[in-house]
């Protein structure tokens, strides 16, 4: 394998991981954007999404052709996590909206324990094999191997991000979300139902995390009930890297973090890949605390 080939191969691997990080990072950033809350239970929503997809995939692959099973698992996990995310906002965060921020953080930690342990009780503490019905198709392009699975991850992530961009920039709902992110109080005066809007934001972010969870399980083959912690932390890093609160920033941050890990693992050592990600984050925050695409500092850091 030549130098260029190694580079391109790591690029392909890094992009796959990055697409998954980006999908999860979007949830952190959307929620922060609207109510300046870091939902530290978001990683667990991702994890629950991967288990929902696992159950659906096991049930569906025997019955229907694989593309239908995949679509069913994706949509089912998205729906399930939307309800979960909406419920988290409605019953865990909304009652303490006026309380100091530390309360929300403690709530998030509690929620994480509840979700982790619920999944552990339901599915057991050991790694679970994640069925991947996608046929193992490989393409050799100039010595670089690209699999159908990777192309699928890129395609799904790109489509969802385009969809989200359209929703936020091109619809009335998105306009109201951007307005609420800027000034929640005036939005109440304009008659915008901000509580419902915040709920929708949680549901949307959670649905994207569910897609991340499904693709993660399929790409890596096994899932575990504490995957949400590490992957969630990485996705949070990606959101901060891109500029928290900034939607294109989360996409860029996710992909960048995936690439960093890909190249770090390829060129240096795969055991140190987490270190590269966090070192870059620290360096970036020293130089540009608002993240790559963030503009606002003021009280929000």
């Amino acid at each position: 394998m030549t130098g260029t080939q190694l580079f391109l191969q790591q690029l392909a691997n890094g992009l796959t991981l990055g697409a998954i990080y980006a999908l999860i990072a979007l949830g952190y950033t959307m929620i922060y954007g609207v109510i300046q809350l870091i939902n530290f239970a978001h990683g667990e929503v991702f994890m629950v999404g991967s288990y929902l997809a696992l159950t659906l995939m096991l049930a569906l692959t025997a019955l229907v052709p694989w593309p239908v099973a995949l679509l069913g698992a994706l949509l089912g996990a998205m729906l399930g996590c939307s309800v979960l995310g909406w419920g988290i906002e409605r019953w865990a965060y909304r009652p303490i909206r006026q309380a100091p921020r530390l309360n929300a953080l403690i709530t998030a930690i509690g929620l994480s324990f509840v979700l982790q342990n619920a999944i552990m009780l339901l599915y057991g503490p050991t790694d679970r094999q994640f069925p991947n019905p996608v046929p193992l198709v490989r393409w050799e392009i100039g010595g670089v191997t690209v699999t159908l699975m990777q192309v699928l991850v890129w395609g799904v992530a790109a489509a969802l991000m385009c969809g989200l961009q359209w929703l936020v920039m091109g619809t009335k709902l998105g306009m109201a979300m951007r307005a609420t992110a800027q000034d929640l109080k005036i939005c109440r005066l304009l008659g915008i139902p901000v509580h419902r809007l915040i709920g929708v934001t949680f549901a949307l972010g959670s649905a994207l995390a569910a897609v991340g969870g499904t693709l993660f399980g399929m790409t890596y083959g096994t899932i575990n009930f504490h995957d949400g912690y590490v992957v969630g932390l990485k996705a949070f890093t990606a959101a901060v890297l891109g500029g928290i609160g900034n939607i294109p920033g989360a996409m860029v941050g996710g992909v960048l973090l995936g690439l960093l890990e890909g190249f770090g693992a390829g060129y240096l050592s795969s055991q140190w890949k987490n270190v590269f990600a966090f070192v870059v984050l620290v360096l970036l925050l020293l130089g540009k605390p608002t993240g790559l695409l963030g503009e606002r500092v003021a009280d929000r850091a």
Partner: protein
Amino acid sequence: MLQVSHVVAGYGAIDCLHGVSLEVHPGEIVALLGANGAGKTTTLMAISGLLPCRAGRITFDGMDLPDESPESLVRRGLSHVPEGRRILGRLTVEENLRLGAYTRADAVQVHQDLQRAYALFPILASRRRQLAGTLSGGEQQMLAIARGLMSRPKLLLLDEPSLGLAPKMIQLMFETIQRLNREGLTILLVEQNAYQALHVAHRGYVLETGRVVLEDTAAHLTTNPRITAAYLGS
């Protein structure tokens, strides 16, 4: 149209309003005057539901306001243009206006009202695709008022529309207020600029440390020695 009776409201442990009562009849412009900290803005916030009433009663068009959310108040015809304009700077002028009509579903009527807003303030039409944060102070105030009208209110609560504006712009604001009133809009106007406010208003109330100390027609208030001494300069 609006009855505020014996309202007590405040922030934290402190009451700012100690039983404010006032009334606004259909078709009127009512001026709410008073020094800084007298409770003018607090009164408006209590009416529009941003601040809970600790005692007293507010009714608008026959319904009890404290039970209603700010959203449903907008649907029922109450619009509050707050102090400091509060325009959404990272959204375009047109997006700001459209958000003012968020509670309305009829796209055709909203489009008509958008055209009316542009007719009212032609400068906004030429800046419709611009980010609202790039507008001048006067243009932002025009946008704030135009946005407040997009929900087709029956009653407009207007908080300090002349604050920080150039004299020519202040003139335009008061002319606009009169024009809107002639077209049938009822207005409750909070102003520091007492002389100008009384010039356009029908009646006025004077607040002092959370209490109404005077109420009269605008014409009488303008000649009231207490007012001229305190607010108008002799």
